[in-house]
């Protein structure tokens, strides 16, 4: 059924269709509308037999979900940014315990400086947590990925994080094809945990594991991701068969046939990239793109197949691993190990900075010409940086850059 609706509300309804049994909610922008929507659905009785729990922190939110999931209830929560950092300990714990919790991240920058707008810093901070990390390109995909996420999580007993760009997706009104309950029911069987807290069959969960087998335990957790690499395309195919549209999967190539340049990215920016690809193709450039839907597990082999022989590779990414560069680019380089193609990184959209088609096209054009720096910062105001570095060198201060600039302005410094 087609509906015009806010991304967050659409996700709330999709999650509701998955018949969650326990939902833990704690507000943080830009995720808040999702749990608000869910609270209405539960209050209205539109989600049957579900506990909606308002908790006192993100740490508690995921902890409650850990408990409910371990007790055999399908469990869901959502967060973003600082909230994800605050629950970090529980994030690792949930995956370590193999609990198939699904959590939405309304992707947002990390402070300081505090910033509520979109980038992928939050998700990237948990890239090694053992959670499966899927990135939605659109609100429709966000809806679809949640349905697939529960299926995947419960099949392999591993938590899944569905990432959707804060504001860009969460707060955007779009037309959504909302699945029907019976469709979802047919696709997503009731949760049958592989183990649970049950007085009839008592076990001790969460033992302390020493050096003798810790590595084996970690390998087995890694193996779940290897399993997920196989299951994600299968589930996506089945989803397509049942719901009639392609959503999810490991990666989605766009016009990559014979491409000399392929652009890769996570999340909603792929929409803009595809438009640029279309323009450049129209201009005769052999350009294509790949939407990376599954960041963890990372589809090394699938990418390598598509990228071998491609002359130029550009990764557009909304994160910056300080001291090295783009995280996605480094992962892409890993898929190309032994090959000699350069991988250009374009850091873009940090803290919600708009990514323009013009800027992207400029980058791609330079990349084709071989003039793009290996690590390029899209639309960076180098003038500010030059000035600040100059001051920093002349007056050694501590404290955040933004603050210093403000301070200097207040002091009436004309050169700021």
């Amino acid at each position, binding site marked *: 059924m087609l509906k015009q609706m806010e991304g967050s509300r659409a996700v709330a309804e999709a999650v509701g269709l998955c018949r969650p*049994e*326990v939902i*833990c909610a704690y507000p943080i922008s830009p995720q808040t509308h999702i749990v608000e929507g869910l609270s209405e659905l539960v209050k209205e009785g539109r989600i049957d*037999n*579900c*506990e909606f*729990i*308002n*908790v*006192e*922190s993100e*740490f*508690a939110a995921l*902890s*409650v*979900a*850990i*408990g*409910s*999931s*371990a*007790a*055999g*209830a399908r*469990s869901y929560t959502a967060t973003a940014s600082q909230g994800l950092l605050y629950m970090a*300990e*529980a994030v690792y*714990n949930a995956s370590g*315990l193999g609990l198939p919790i699904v959590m939405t991240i309304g992707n947002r920058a990390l402070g300081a400086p505090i910033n509520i707008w979109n980038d992928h810093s939050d998700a990237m901070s948990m890239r090694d947590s053992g959670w499966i990390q899927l990135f939605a390109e659109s609100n429709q995909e966000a809806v679809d990925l949640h349905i697939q996420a529960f299926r995947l999580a419960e099949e392999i007993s591993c938590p899944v994080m569905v990432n959707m760009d804060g504001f860009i997706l969460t707060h955007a009104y779009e037309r959504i094809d909302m699945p029907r309950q019976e469709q979802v029911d047919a696709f997503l069987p009731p949760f049958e945990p592989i183990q649970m*807290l*049950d*007085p009839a*069959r*008592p*076990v*001790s*969960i*969460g*033992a*302390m*594991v*020493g050096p*003798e*087998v810790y590595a084996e335990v970690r390998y087995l957790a890694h193996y779940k991701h290897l399993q997920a690499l196989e299951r994600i395309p299968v589930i996506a195919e089945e989803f397509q068969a049942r719901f009639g549209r392609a959503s999810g999967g490991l990666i989605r190539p766009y016009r990559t046939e014979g491409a000399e340049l392929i652009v890769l990215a996570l999340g909603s920016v792929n929409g803009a990239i595809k438009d640029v690809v279309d323009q450049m193709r129209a201009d005769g450039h052999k350009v294509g793109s790949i939407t990376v839907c599954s960041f963890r597990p990372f589809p090394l082999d699938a990418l390598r197949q598509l990228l071998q022989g491609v002359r130029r590779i550009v990764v557009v990414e909304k994160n910056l691993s300080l001291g090295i560069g783009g995280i996605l680019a480094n992962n892409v380089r890993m898929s190309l190990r032994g090959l000699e193609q350069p991988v250009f990184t374009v850091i873009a959209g940090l803290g919600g900075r708009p990514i323009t088609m013009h800027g992207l096209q400029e980058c791609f054009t330079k990349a084709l010409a071989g003039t793009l720096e290996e690590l390029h910062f899209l639309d960076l105001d180098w003038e500010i940086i030059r000035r600040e570095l100059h001051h920093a060198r002349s007056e050694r201060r501590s404290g955040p850059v933004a603050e210093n600039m403000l301070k200097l302005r207040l002091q009436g410094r004309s050169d700021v």
Partner: protein
Amino acid sequence: MSDENAPEQKVKFYQKGTYTVGNRLVNVRQRSVQASMDRSNSLTCGHRACQGCGEALGARYAIDAAMRATNNQLIAINATGCLEVFTTPYPETSWQIPWMHSLFGNAAAVAAGVAAAMRVKGLKQVRTIAQGGDGGTMDIGFGCLSGMFERNDDVLYICYDNEAYMNTGVQRSSATPVAARTATTPAMGANPGNSFNSGKNLPLIAMAHNIPYVATASVAALHDLEAKVTRAMSLHGARYLHIHVPCPLGWGSAPHDTIQVARLAIKSGLFPLIEAEHGMVTATVPIRQPVPVTDYLKLQKRFAHLLRGGEENARKLAAIQTIADNNIKRFNLVRKEAPRV
């Protein structure tokens, strides 16, 4: 005369073994859970707690009583800490009940999740307990605990209070008593041991949440402890039980003195045994044979520096005695009434 169907026997408080774990002379129903041959031994042999561990003892007391009260329909969530580490090092667990350890500071929240799952699954008979040490409860887990209280989640939270971070090697917690030596409040300098701070009384904080049940208990008062667990399990909603469990290693007491030290904490007034429902104190256990606080302190090396004489130490001992006296006054602990322990 001791079979199950025998008439209830009036326990006279001055007969043989009035206060013992069991007593073959009274009706089976009047004996403690610990006296029964079919107690669940929720925490069984082979665990790696130190000799004379009060927490191991308190945990078995409490969980066995809860198992009895729930007809063995119990799930326990454990915070990180001694209890977790000494019971579940791979490849062995000492627990005989469904049990899970997640993190240090989230036991109350995880248990709230379990309780929610049981509600949604219609398994009303399955009850949830969360347990942790004083650090996991009063410090790092305090936020989750308060949240669980305020939501009135159907969880009994049990704090085994041994008054410091024992698992990491005896560091100060908010439960560490004034003047006590810990690894981070060494008995050195002009003010040895823990500072004379204002303290943190978690049972009273719990009461301030107006939750259905709050109680304190001790490994030295088994019948009282079991009665409180049983009462707690007869109620629904958030409940809190704070059990005093001496730690021979951390307190510098002899392993065989664990119960005696706990008993002296009660007798001195430093650890009042109270019960409260919906924020109101409903019962306190009167002290039998009151003693001065020094009787309690002198069995523990963590207070040894206080007992070396001198004016300053005398002043500090008087201050500690005042804490005990205030407890006694506040809860009317010295009165003519036979105690239930």
